[in-house]
């Protein structure tokens, strides 16, 4: 596996007033890895994702993606750059069907213009066919084939989470960011999710995953970053993190408090 840092932050800080949600975090993700981000509630994990995908302007520090400084870019350009995310609080297009949700994910890769749409030109037809065919494949990848024509809002919870991942994959991201993809899933669903994540990773994509499910994290992650109260307190493989006194302290301290 190459040692290329596909994503890197340098002294990244995001402050909300006096609250240092993310504080001078230096971290990097190696290409091809499944990289975990863990930490107690309020550690700043989601905030970090928001900054990485352009939803929040960092208070300080820089973000590099494939060696290029992307700090402060607008969120709608993330997909084009090759970053796509899922959301901790599911954000599907609820009244659209599963396949339509995925088709939206292709947006920036398509070239249909207003006139193409009105006159149903060849470009329009090709785009539509591509999104339908590739969209169905993506649903299959996430084991959602049978749900293609169901409205997103009517799908079971765990299924909705997998649909979010399918939708994110539609933009063909080099780096996929998943915010608590297993939240609310039962063990069977989590196992299925774990298999899906491995499959995506085997396809050559880099994945960053925030998760509270430690078994899942330890199972799928090559490297793990631990945040606590906005600070990076540890980084390394599962073994390192598992035995790090600071990490144990952070979690225990919280349970005790």
């Amino acid at each position, binding site marked *: 596996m190459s040692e290329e840092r596909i994503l890197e932050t340098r002294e990244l800080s995001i402050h909300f007033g006096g609250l240092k949600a993310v504080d001078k975090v230096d971290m990097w993700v190696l290409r091809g890895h499944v990289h975990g981000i863990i930490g107690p509630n309020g550690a700043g994990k989601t905030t970090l994702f928001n900054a990485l995908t352009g939803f929040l302007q960092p208070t300080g520090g820089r973000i590099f993606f494939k060696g290029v400084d992307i700090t402060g870019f607008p969120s709608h350009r*993330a997909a084009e750059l090759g970053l*796509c995310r899922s*959301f901790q609080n599911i*954000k599907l297009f609820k009244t659209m069907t599963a396949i339509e949700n995925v088709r*939206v994910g292709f947006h*920036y890769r398509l070239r249909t213009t*207003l006139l193409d*749409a009105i006159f149903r030109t060849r470009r329009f037809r090709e785009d539509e066919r591509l999104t339908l065919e590739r969209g169905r494949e993506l649903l299959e990848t996430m084991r959602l084939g049978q749900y293609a024509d169901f409205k997103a809002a009517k799908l079971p919870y765990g299924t909705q989470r997998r649909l979010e991942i399918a939708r994110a994959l539609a933009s063909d991201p080099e780096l996929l960011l998943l915010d608590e993809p297993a939240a*609310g899933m039962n063990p069977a669903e989590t196992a299925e999710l774990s298999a899906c994540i491995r499959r995506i990773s085997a396809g050559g994509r880099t994945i960053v995953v925030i998760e509270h499910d430690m078994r899942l994290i330890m199972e799928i992650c090559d490297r793990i970053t631990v945040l606590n109260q906005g600070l990076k307190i540890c980084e390394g493989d599962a073994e390192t993190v598992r035995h790090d006194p600071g990490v144990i302290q952070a979690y225990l301290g919280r349970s005790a408090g």
Partner: protein
Amino acid sequence: MISRLVRQERTVFLALLATALLAFPLAFRENNYILRIAINIFLYAILCTSLNMINGYSGQFNIGQAGFYCIGAYTAAILSTRHGIGIWISLPVCGLMASVASLLLGIPTARLKGIFLAMSTLGFSEIIRLIVLNGGEFTRGPMGIPGIPPASLFGWELGTNFHMYYLALLLTALTVLICANVLDSRIGRAWIAIREDELAARAMGIPTVRYKIYNLAFSTFWAGVAGCYYAFLSNFVSADSFHLDEGFVILGMVLVGGLGSIAGPLIGAAILVIIPEIFRFLAEYRLILYGVAILITMHLRPQGICGGGVMDTGDAGSVRDQDEPPDSEPEPATGGDGT
């Protein structure tokens, strides 16, 4: 398989509908009253389809549709009476004028949401009317612009209601077809995605601000077209026809028919044009009738008669609930066990 059957049924239905609409005026050739009602339905169907593209599909809230309608009507009036420009060139020009005006509204307000956007569209509509009312020589102020020549085609005058019926039918069909085509493309899907969840739409690579402005410009084009048709239909335009009431009526029709569906605005327009005709003795209270119709609809069927996308979520409650982040609910299994 099933969808093919549905599609076939739909094709048959549309063919029958088209035949009926084409044949209709033949039966009422001399009945100007009936023809006028039908023409009004078409005119409002265009205005409603236009508004529905905004309120029903991209989830913005425009209640000032009368302003864009007004721009179309005055553009046609000025072009025809002073520059001799006929309806066929005027139709797209009026549409474009409304679109350009929508940019003046849309660019500064694209980041506004809900009630704030609604208020600015309302204000915009009134500003347009006041500009027209105080436009001096250019708009002839309160006197309006009379003497708009009848529409013509290759030198034939289309002066009668019989002819204007077919023109209205053609424009309605064109509006609906083009809107439906655009909705069924990556552009329409982007608009609907914005309506459903703006942040997620952005994460999927949709420049949401630009697409909202785009949506407003595309949709108001059709209000401008309707205004142009109206000018040639009545041969006279005056600021009086474009009060806020007019915008409310159009909005009411869309709400009754159902936001976020193709058929909704057409049915809403038909119902709310026909009801006041039945209750002609209540002519003074036209707006009250509309209000009652809206209330009844909201009570019996909040998503409107054909309401498709926006509120059609089956069990209304459950979807709403998920707006609240369920994230906090499954308490993390962070506990030391794994660590």
